[in-house]
């Protein structure tokens, strides 16, 4: 048993962190609001770095790595607040030509149950997509985004995740069966958890840096226990979530290690908890400044909210977990 990163994994983590720092500094991330969250040249740089082809076998032009490595990559994308349909383009690379290379931008949406009135159907990044994948219990379906009738939501919570409210999805072409759909649900939840983990860590770093610098009562505010303890709790939530998320990646790679569904469910729940609580705490530590548009804290919290609603919310995962105990 060795629950630490290997040298190769550390190198991968480091490379993605550098890529994000170079290609997605915060000024660039913020500028993407004008592009619906996706800018093609930047998208291709993610693809060139293997973000979408990471788990594809090498003969298919992929990198041939596992879910443990994908977790590290998504954690870094979360830390840098990289917007766009990252999860779906990564999953979709297995079934849509051109997704792995970044030539096509793939979005997706989960459809729960069948028939009857559907809950509010919100499609992310619709205007920026080349293909839309629909995931339901029967499999995965590919749609032309232009065939999807929807209305742009005027004020999305996360300015970098534009939404379309869609009444009905056209049928589309089936591109994968129920087994793939079930696997994607687990993978999607794990990688969403990894992004949430990255968000939880980023806001911890941001709040700590601010608390060391910001002076009140002639002292850095981080010296006060009232503030210090908020920051320590942020660290604890992130570290506990990290253990759960890395474990989920390892379970996907080696299902013999334990109950995969339980590991993934717990990871999504813990990471969602950490990102949401830490996002709020970061704003609290920033005081009034934290409530402004200029300070980045709100963008992380809003992204955490978006990600909490995909591949099973913390509430839904808590129920799944209850069914497993």
């Amino acid at each position: 048993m060795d629950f630490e990163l290997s040298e190769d994994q550390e190198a991968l983590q480091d490379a993605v962190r550098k890529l994000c720092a170079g290609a997605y500094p915060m000024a660039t991330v913020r500028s993407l609001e004008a592009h619906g969250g996706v800018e093609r040249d930047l998208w291709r740089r993610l693809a060139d770095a293997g973000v979408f082809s990471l788990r594809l076998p090498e003969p298919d032009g992929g990198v041939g790595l596992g879910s443990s490595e994908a977790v590290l990559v998504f954690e870094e994308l979360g830390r840098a607040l990289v917007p766009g349909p990252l999860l779906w383009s990564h999953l979709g690379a297995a079934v849509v030509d051109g997704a792995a290379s970044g030539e096509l931008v793939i979005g997706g949406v989960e459809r729960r149950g069948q028939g009857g009135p559907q809950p509010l159907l919100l499609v992310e990044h619709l205007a920026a997509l080349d293909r839309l994948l629909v995931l339901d219990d029967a499999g995965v379906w590919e749609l032309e985004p232009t065939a999807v009738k929807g209305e742009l939501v005027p004020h999305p919570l996360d300015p970098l995740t534009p939404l379309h409210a869609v009444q009905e999805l056209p049928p589309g072409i089936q591109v994968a069966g129920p087994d793939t759909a079930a696997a994607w649900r687990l993978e999607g939840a794990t990688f969403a958890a990894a992004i949430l983990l990255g968000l939880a860590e980023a806001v911890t770093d941001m709040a700590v840096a601010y608390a060391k610098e910001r002076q009140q009562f002639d002292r850095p505010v981080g010296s006060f226990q009232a503030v210090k303890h908020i920051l320590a709790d942020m660290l604890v939530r992130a570290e506990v979530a990290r253990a759960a998320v890395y474990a989920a990646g390892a379970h996907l790679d080696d299902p013999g290690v334990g109950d995969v569904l339980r590991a993934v469910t717990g990871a999504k729940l813990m990471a969602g908890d950490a990102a949401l609580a830490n996002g709020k705490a970061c704003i609290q530590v920033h005081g009034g400044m934290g409530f402004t548009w200029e300070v980045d804290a709100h963008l992380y919290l809003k992204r955490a909210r978006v990600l909490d609603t995909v591949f099973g919310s913390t509430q839904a995962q808590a129920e799944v977990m209850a069914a497993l105990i």
Partner: protein
Amino acid sequence: MNLRYSESEERFRGELRGWLDKVLPTVGPPPASDDWPGRRAYDTAWQRMLYEAGYAGINWPKELGGRGASPTEHLVFLEETERAHAPYVGVNFVGLLHAGPTLIAEASPEQRSRYLPPILRGDEVWCQGFSEPGAGSDLAALRTRAVRDGDHYVVSGQKIWTSHAEVADFCELLVRTDPHAPKHRGISWLVLPMDSPGVEVRPLRTIYGTAEFSEVFLDEVRVPVANRVGVENDGWRVAMVTFSFERGTAFVSELLQSMELLESLVGIARSTRDGAQPWDDLGVRRELGHLAADLDALWSLTKRNVTQASRTGVPGVGGSVFKLHYSEVRHRLGDLALRILDRAGLSFDDLGGARSGEQVKGWVHALSISIAAGTSQIQRNILGERVLGLPRER
């Protein structure tokens, strides 16, 4: 990153399991919690069995009588003994998990050969004399004084919250040997024989209603200078070594017990009372699921901490992270249990179906977890200052 146990780790697990299957049926039920002589006899007899089978001091060096196993094998040992409901480490806790590792790291060869083997054999029991009425979280404020008189120290003062003091043979004692030095610098770490004249132990009744720990009064107790571990006035650093072990794997058994507590609570929630099941309450179900995720994550964190310890040789800050979150989880678990039990949670006896009393005890126990071994507030300071690099409060 590999969560699979190696072949040799699995082989160790298999052997241990086989041995436990064979011997546990011969071990009787534990004595009542307030029967201290009975507890000592029970716990030390178990330690003797472990010793004779080669399972004492799993992670202690071989040359000091231990098994010399890896941290992962230590984890396997704790996991298997807990899952098999083997006797808990009990009164041997301080000796095996505290004093022993500190002596291994800091004591002279003579001290090691005197004190370590009897700990492993279960012949001698230790207690901890760190806290004082005026020095709990601010441990370095301790006032118990040791004045040099020839080749003895003359020790006077008072210790408190001393578990197992009534049945202990030795106490790891922190004393002030230089009252004029800055408070962290004038402390020494002594081995106090509990039968020394001038040592008086008075049990303290806890909120369980029973005596779990004691006050220890020290009135001009003569302790040989040879019983000092480490350099005079360097005891604070030695104590910090003790703490790093305390925060390492000391909570593994606790965590596994919590997982069982949760399972038994699920059983209670699923049983019908007054025509309804608490399980039918969505909020109850979600909180149970949430707690399971928390405990699973803490188990994963334990594995990460153990891996880090085996790479670096010392337990890192993971122990503080673990303890803080674990304390909160145990508070939530206890609160939920009492919510589910409703009026059946008004007794330490089983009133609300199977094992409701243990849930009530668990609720009370949680109150101590966030206090003992460094309060949650102290843990937050440790993480804030030593990990996040925040300035100290003045």
